[in-house]
């Protein structure tokens, strides 16, 4: 593994942690506050690609498993993996992998295509995994679980818009591209 890979993954992991420490932003008509950490997960996949992005999220999850309070709300420890968020955490690991591959395959300088990829992988996929996690871990019927995660869709969609805009802005920057 190149040293550059190590440092970039380390810094992205640190960014994911920072975003998790920022308190959730309450938004008027959305019932759940918007937390920025999964915005970081989307960006990890988009900016670093599938391999490095997955390593960054994996490092975050290892630290959380070791007891660090790096999830939104200061949650950490082995307990969160078998709690209601278990499915989400697993999908955080898969999200950069799929997103990195998809963007490489389909990205064509059209912002709408990039947004579609980021939305499908970063919002729909993550929430479906969250619902499946709820079903597996608590026995809640799948249909009910799917309905309950709908509450996160608006906030996550806003985050995917932000992610695609950040992604486009940074990708257009020549100095940034050369440092990847």
């Amino acid at each position, binding site marked *: 593994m190149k040293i550059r890979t190590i440092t970039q993954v*380390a810094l992205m992991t640190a960014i994911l942690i920072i975003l998790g420490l920022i308190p959730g932003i309450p938004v008027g008509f959305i019932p759940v506050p918007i937390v920025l950490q999964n915005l970081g997960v989307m960006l990890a996949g988009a900016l670093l690609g599938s391999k490095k992005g997955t390593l960054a999220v994996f490092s975050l999850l290892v630290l959380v498993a070791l007891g660090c309070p790096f999830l939104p709300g200061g949650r950490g420890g082995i307990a969160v993996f078998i709690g209601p968020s278990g499915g989400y955490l697993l999908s955080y690991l898969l999200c950069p992998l799929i997103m990195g591959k998809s963007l490489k395959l389909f990205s064509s300088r059209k912002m709408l295509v990039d947004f579609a990829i980021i939305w499908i992988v970063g919002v729909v996929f993550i929430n479906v995994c969250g619902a499946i996690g709820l079903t597996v871990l608590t026995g*809640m019927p799948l249909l009910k679980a799917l309905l309950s995660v709908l509450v996160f869709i608006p906030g996550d969609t806003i985050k995917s818009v932000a992610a695609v805009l950040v992604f486009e802005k*940074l990708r257009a920057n020549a100095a940034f591209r050369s440092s990847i």
Partner: protein
Amino acid sequence: MIGQFIPGRSVVHRLDPRTKIIATALWILLLFLTHSIAGFVADTIFLVLITLSSRIPLLVVLRSTKPIIPIVLFTSFFNILYTSGDVIWSAWIFQITKQGIEISAFLSLRILLMVMGSSILTFTTSLTDITSGIESLLSPLERVGVRITDFAMMVTLAIRFIPTLSEEVQKIKDAQRARGASFGSKKITQKIKEVFPILVPLIYSSFRRAFDLTNAIECRCYNQKIKRTKLNPLKYQKRDLFCGIIIVLFFSIIIIIQK
């Protein structure tokens, strides 16, 4: 201090982190092999003894289970109501069975004891030590191509840069505020726009920092092909052997008394 480490000088604190990691793994295995009331009572006694010798307050250990209370209750609820067996009480479509209660109790106990045992590890071992311990224990995987050393380096660097990036966020925020940016607006579109002045420079400067760090590391002759030395190498002590024997004996006894 990052993590959940509670400083202390107890015998548990002073054990080699590798001993504690292996013990925690065995503990989880033991819980899956426990399937009787006597077994769970013995497990609980063992956990209490470990907690007392680590001098971590019992209340702190109990509190570590707080995140999973909802899921334990929820799972218990379903198991009690939907397990077939000897009906104790029934109404409408619901029935409570003896087997359901038993399954729920054992499942709940297993999860709670697992979480509390894992918390003892994180309470008595610093994050740096845990990382070193895991790196050492997983080092045999290097022979099959898994880059354990590189991964340990990633985690260590990430931890090191958390305070640096926190400061960076604050500086960026202040700089943007000085230029007229307002944070804390009520409008939703404004809230989205607030993200960019912070996130774009943060990511950009982080990758510049990664670039500079790469050059600095290489200039200092870091090389993955060369076996590294360690500033604070881990060393087993007599107390690790002693505690290891106690743990193996105790776990063996629990398994035997359940046969």
